[in-house]
């Protein structure tokens, strides 16, 4: 929307009701502009669905296929209830990180909303999925749908063979550990596409677990006991609890290991999304805003279209302040959008402040800077690197220190010269998964004794585990088959056993 706006063509019609022809026409224009900006995307697959199907998609965590589990039924009922009562609107769109990239559009949307959603999901999110290093490393867009189909069929087969109840209990336990089922620092292997390969590996794994000398019960007469006692297992603490259980839990059947693996893989698939909310949503919002505005500048969009678009866009990036009753923390759309807009501004019109804070990007080509930032960061590092004093001032950010040993809260930093770095540091840390979620490690297995498993919580800032940790521990014990202990290692170096969950499945099954 600038002075250089010129009416080159007739604007596209913008009726309330969308049609397939119009969606195609709008998509073609958006596609053209996106290519001009150099957005690199997976091919798009746009699917029109009803609100009921949208609720279905919600409850199976946004995936087009998924295995069956009561918890999905629960979330469906929850969604349905709040939707029917009008407490909540449904998202306009769901986009799936797959190749081709599937974007769901709701049939209730107006034509304007459909165009917004196409720009947002099919170009914004899509290009992010394709370019960002986390998604590249952790997910395999080509194979995810196939893998989910495989997972569903496999679980259905298990249900037929071992009973729905049995499978459900196993899934419950696995779901409880989904968050601690990811290698945070190691690149995982790609999801297997081919069933045959999976089966092969499964067989190999099974064989390996048979020869795993951990559980060899044959008398080992010639082994020096001294040496064995000193051996630790695992030799180094492990962060991926589900993986550890899949590979080492002594009593799991092969099919149970495969189920653990499936849940682990699905959990891992969502791992990048949890770490790139601000970046990803901000990126998509920036692009729908930029693409649509570019089309408007070309004279392709009618004014009524633009007004509705701006209305929706403004709602999306609304950020209430802390004192308002509907404050629910920072709105990732608002923060992300503001940051990307700001980076462009720093590139195009840097001030002295920007030159001081961002010497390497001030005045650079914004397209190149964008591409670099999108590909190589996650929320934590993105904020640490690019949150500018101007955005902090615009949002009037301030930090509150809440120490449960102090009677009062303390304002530790605000949006001023002394506070910028501190605020940025804290905000970045807030998005750091490592400090947001408890740091748990598989610490030790008592090989020589009762085979009990010890988990260790490395406390950070004296933050305790929540109350339902003992429930989760029961699930760990169910999978492990023997006693499980949780200990906490405090920052002062002390270690204390928090709780213990006894279990002896072997005995239970004998009687």
């Amino acid at each position, binding site marked *: 929307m600038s002075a250089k706006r010129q009416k080159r063509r007739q604007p596209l019609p913008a009726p309330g009701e969308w049609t397939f022809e119009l969606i195609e026409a709008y998509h073609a224009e958006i596609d053209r502009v996106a290519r001009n900006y150099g957005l690199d995307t997976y091919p798009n697959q746009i699917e029109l669905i009803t609100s009921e199907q949208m609720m279905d998609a919600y409850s199976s965590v946004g995936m087009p296929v998924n295995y069956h589990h009561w918890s999905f039924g629960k979330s469906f009922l929850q969604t349905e209830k709040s939707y029917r009562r009008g407490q909540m609107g449904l998202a306009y769109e769901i986009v799936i990180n797959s190749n*081709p990239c599937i974007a769901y559009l709701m049939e209730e949307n107006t034509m304007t909303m459909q165009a917004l959603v196409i720009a947002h999901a099919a170009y914004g999110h899509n290009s992010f999925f394709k370019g960002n290093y986390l998604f590249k490393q952790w997910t395999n867009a080509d194979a995810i749908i196939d893998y989910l189909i495989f997972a569903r069929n496999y679980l259905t087969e298990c249900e037929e063979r071992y009973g729905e109840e049995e499978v459900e209990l196993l899934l419950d336990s696995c779901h409880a550990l989904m968050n601690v089922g990811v290698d945070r620092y190691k690149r995982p292997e790609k999801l297997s596409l081919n069933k045959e390969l999976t089966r092969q590996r499964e067989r190999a794994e099974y064989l390996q677990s048979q020869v795993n000398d951990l559980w060899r019960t044959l008398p080992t007469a010639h082994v020096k006991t001294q040496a064995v006692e000193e051996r630790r297992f695992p030799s180094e603490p492990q962060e991926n609890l589900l993986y550890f259980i899949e590979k080492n839990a002594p009593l799991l059947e092969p099919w149970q290991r495969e189920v653990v693996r499936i849940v682990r893989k699905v959990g891992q698939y969502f791992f990048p999304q949890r770490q790139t909310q601000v970046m990803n949503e901000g990126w998509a919002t920036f692009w729908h805003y930029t693409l649509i505005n570019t089309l408007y500048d070309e004279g392709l969009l009618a004014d009524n279209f633009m007004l509705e678009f701006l209305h929706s866009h403004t709602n999306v990036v609304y950020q209430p302040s802390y004192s308002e009753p509907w404050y629910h923390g920072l709105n990732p759309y608002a923060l992300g959008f503001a940051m990307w807009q700001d980076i462009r501004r720093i590139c195009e019109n840097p001030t002295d402040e920007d030159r001081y804070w961002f010497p390497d990007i001030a005045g650079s080509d914004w397209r190149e800077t964008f591409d670099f930032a999108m590909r190589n960061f996650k929320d934590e590092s993105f904020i640490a690197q690019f949150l500018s004093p101007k955005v902090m001032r615009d949002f009037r950010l301030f930090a509150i220190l809440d120490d449960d040993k102090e009677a009062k809260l303390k304002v*530790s930093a605000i949006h001023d010269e002394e506070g910028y770095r501190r605020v940025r540091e804290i905000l970045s840390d807030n998005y750091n998964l490592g400090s947001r979620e408890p740091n*748990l490690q598989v610490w030790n297995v008592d090989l020589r004794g009762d085979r009990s498993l010890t988990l260790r919580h490395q406390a950070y800032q004296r933050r305790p585990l929540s109350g339902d940790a003992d429930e989760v521990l029961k699930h760990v014990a169910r999978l492990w088959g023997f006693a499980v202990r949780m200990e906490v290692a405090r920052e002062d170096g002390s270690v204390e056993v928090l709780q213990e969950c006894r279990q002896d499945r072997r005995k239970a099954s004998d009687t």
Partner: protein
Amino acid sequence: MVRIIDRRFDSKNKSAVNRQRFMRRFKNQIREAVADAISGRSIKDLDNGESVTIPSKDLSEPQFHHGRGGIWENIFTGNDQFSSGDQINRPQGGGGGGTGKGKASKDGEGEDDFVFNLSREEFLDVFFDDLALPNLVKTQLARIHEYKSQRAGFTNDGTPANINVVRSLRGALGRRLALSSPYRGQLRELQKQLDELLETRPEDDPEILALKEEIGILRAKIDAIPFIDTFDLRYNNRIKVPKPTTQAVMFCIMDVSGSMDEDKKATAKRFFMLLYLFLTRTYEHIEVVFIRHHTIAKEVNEEDFFHSRESGGTVVSSALEMMKDILHARYLNGAWNVYGAQASDGDNWENDSPHCRELLADTILPFVQYFAYIEITPGEPQNLWREYEKLVGAHANFAMQHIEGLPDIYPVFRELFKKKLA
């Protein structure tokens, strides 16, 4: 490159399986909710769903999270008053605003119990589950109205298949007659003149020729009236009417003496409900009369029937007398099908039981379709049972059953259903 796919007509109930899983998982809670609902509901109110509440702690899916406590440092927006180093009191309400935002939403909210709605089918399913009904009966009871299509005169529009030929042609004939009658009158007139003229004049007389021409015009006009027109068409009219078109009255008789405790009453209630449900499938209009008794009987409303407490001895005949009186006063004009259901623990005043049998045999059974007696007692049958037993062979419309638990209720109705299914 883009593919646009219309998925709106794909299968809708993708989540149906997950919903079933959910229901199965929380079967116990749902059962309890249904049991509660039944005790709270009118016996006539079975055709509705029910909202079920499940405590959120039962539903939670635990995960490792941080709990409250320790040191948190968080960023907020919209600073309007603070400077670095300010001290603030903790906000009330557990510090929801002061501690981590993740925590606030996890611990502060979301603790509401989980409420969802059972559909009518699901509700009946659970209700039937307890009662151990055969499947065929279940489907029969769960079916809503049965309609039959019935002729109801004729309409002006409809499908060609329903054209009533006789009616349509009769209409066409009438219309033709009506439209042509003025011309026919004139035609007759002219014909008469022509005949008269023909006797006196030659055939080529100009007057005769003129008359002939006029007659020709009139004939053409008459012929121009269409043989059949769209508004002549009549169609057979069919309407749907609910099949049961009769009415019934149901007498509920319950012993409320001291020995009938809440459990027994709850069992009795299921019994009454089931009978009612059965009757609704057969009769369009049902009245229910509630009679409770200890030593004296009283006609009450449903609320008092199930919930007020009485104590004292038991004289069953008082209730039967009352039923007889009401029956004869209000329902013996031939328009009513009468059903009786009696629930008791069988503990009657010894001398009264033979009298009950006589009352039943002479003044009630001849007038009712069906009378069912259930004795809810854990032990040996009581004296009332022994007296009633004498009636079983002689009266086909009498059934009795000794009940210890809910599954025993159904056999009472077996005869009734058998008749119905045959």
